């Protein structure tokens, strides 16, 4: 049995790293585990470098159950990058609020990363399901393990029940598609559908698949878990959940629908369009009255998921490349915003927006990062969010969905309003106390990096656009 294991070097590195971290965390005393975070960060940087070198490598492993291609490598880089930032920003938070569990935090993040990396490379429904559950179960534990964090267990049980429920629905859909196509392989299903048959079983399966994946990317009407889990979970976990898990689930969504089911696009496209419109509308409108910054970011995340779905609606190379660009840009913006929330709560602040009053006077740096991230999420030029939205709108315009562009554009205006509410609190109101906020070194570097990247890619997005276009050619 010749298996070319070099194709999965990044996954093997992350697996090895996770087990090494787990074993070392069993051996060292509870209060000396900070080194494990450095080890994980170092390992993840190595993985990132390997992934970058491997971006052009293509191949399949294990009889087509595992696919290595540019699309997967791009999303793997996205996932590894966000885990890296989550660990750097989260270590001190975990030390402060969940004392003694830094080791667990690191290896659970690594296992979740492994799940997400496998997920975007899945070439078969079995791999897909196992990877999805590895990701979900790691996240459930991560959400709930801060028992002393107020409401974390409640968030965990909500996440657990709803995600188990949704994966049951997803699985039922997978089996129905398997029953129709007589294979679980994504390429095999594509061949079957190319023959032109669409039995009712397959249709039912596709509906179940849409709802299952819709849950993972938190699209309306499957978004109900998002605000509660985001609010209750430890903030570094929320940050990771909001970018990496969404990115990975989005990747597998695209792979299944663009690779396995493009043959009957006219059947599922109306459903996707309806979900996209609902997601953009509801996410943006419900974000307006939010009083808690994490809930606000949760609903803004729902809306952003809607924008990313536009890339699927466009159903073209331009659309996929725009969605990939948007997903990566979303990592930097959201990580920046959540990083500020983490730093602020470490300094003793709560997550209520009114507590952010006058943040500008207490820490100009944090306020600036937050402002740049939020404005970029709103899509204000010259920040990267503008470029991302512009590309997405251009892609769907080319397909003739002019009304959809107007809906999305209008809702972007609405989003500016609630993002500016936070900015107003930070810059125009007076703080309750004037103590300056100290930001730890690693956090400072990460936040600065996200801010610079957001600005830089906004002014000069060409390299990333080219990369995304090259990657998107995997599908068409």
């Amino acid at each position, binding site marked *: *049995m010749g298996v070319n294991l070099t194709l999965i070097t990044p996954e093997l590195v992350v697996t090895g790293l996770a*087990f090494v971290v*787990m*074993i070392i965390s*069993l051996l060292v005393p509870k209060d000396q585990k900070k080194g494990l975070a450095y080890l994980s960060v170092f390992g993840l940087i190595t993985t990132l470098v390997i992934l970058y070198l491997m971006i052009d490598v293509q191949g399949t492993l294990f009889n087509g159950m595992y696919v290595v291609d540019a699309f997967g490598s791009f999303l793997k880089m996205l996932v590894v990058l966000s885990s890296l930032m989550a660990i750097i920003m989260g270590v001190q938070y975990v030390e402060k609020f969940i004392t003694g569990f830094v080791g667990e935090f690191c290896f659970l993040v690594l296992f979740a990363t492994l799940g997400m990396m496998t997920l975007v490379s899945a070439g078969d429904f079995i791999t897909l399901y196992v990877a999805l559950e590895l990701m979900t179960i790691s996240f459930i534990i991560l959400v709930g393990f801060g028992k002393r964090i107020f409401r974390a267990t409640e968030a965990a049980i909500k996440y657990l029940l709803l995600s188990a429920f949704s994966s049951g629905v997803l699985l039922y859909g997978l089996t129905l598609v398997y029953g129709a196509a007589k294979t679980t392989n994504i390429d095999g299903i594509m061949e079957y559908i190319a023959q032109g048959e669409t039995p009712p079983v397959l249709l039912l399966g596709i509906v179940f698949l849409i709802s299952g994946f819709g849950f993972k990317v938190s699209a309306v009407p499957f978004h109900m878990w998002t605000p509660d889990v985001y609010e209750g979970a430890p903030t570094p976990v929320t940050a990771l959940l909001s970018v990496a898990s969404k990115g990975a689930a989005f990747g597998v969504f695209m792979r299944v629908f663009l690779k396995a089911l493009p043959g009957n696009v006219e059947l599922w496209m109306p459903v996707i369009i309806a979900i996209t419109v609902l997601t953009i509308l509801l996410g943006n409108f419900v974000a307006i009255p939010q009083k808690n910054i994490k809930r606000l970011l949760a609903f803004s995340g729902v809306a952003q998921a809607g924008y990313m779905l536009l890339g699927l609606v466009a159903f073209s190379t331009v659309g996929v490349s725009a969605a990939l660009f948007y997903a990566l840009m979303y990592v930097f913006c959201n990580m920046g915003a959540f990083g500020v929330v983490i730093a602020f709560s470490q300094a003793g602040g709560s997550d209520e927006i009114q507590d952010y009053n006058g943040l500008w006077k207490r820490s100009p740096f944090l306020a600036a990062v937050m402002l740049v991230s939020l404005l970029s999420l709103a899509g204000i030029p010259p920040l990267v969010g503008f470029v991302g939205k512009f590309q997405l709108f251009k892609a769907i315009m080319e397909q003739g969905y002019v009304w959809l562009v107007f809906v999305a554009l209008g809702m972007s205006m609405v989003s500016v309003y609630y993002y500016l509410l936070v900015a107003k609190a930070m810059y125009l109101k007076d703080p309750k106390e004037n103590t300056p906020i100290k930001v730890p070194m690693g956090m400072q570097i990460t936040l600065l990096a996200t801010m610079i990247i957001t600005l830089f890619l906004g002014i000069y997005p060409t390299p990333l656009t080219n990369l995304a276009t090259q990657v998107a050619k995997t599908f068409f």
Partner: protein
Amino acid sequence: MLVQYTIIGILFLGALAFGAFTIILSRLLQPHRPYPEKLETYECGIKTQGTAWVQFKTSYFLYALVFLVFDIETIFLYPWAVKFQSLGLFAIIEMFIFLIILIIGFWYAWKEGALEWR
């Protein structure tokens, strides 16, 4: 095919009739003299204590959880055990990697005190 199922149906009816017959017959033949001790819930001849709805110690629960996880993983060993001669060395190495991963998990559970009685 249907005929074979009819036989099962007849057997089922026969079993039902036999059970009903014995219960009704004993009800007809038995002397009916109840007294308090006789009407009590029967529990191996010992006097009953409390209600059936009692709380168990969560220690049992923890053992059950650890047992559940490690027990269900053996399901992967069965297909491997049936076929391992034709699968060769590669499958043996793979299975040992799998077992090592399980052992690390078990080590973690042990170290964190999941196996201690509390």
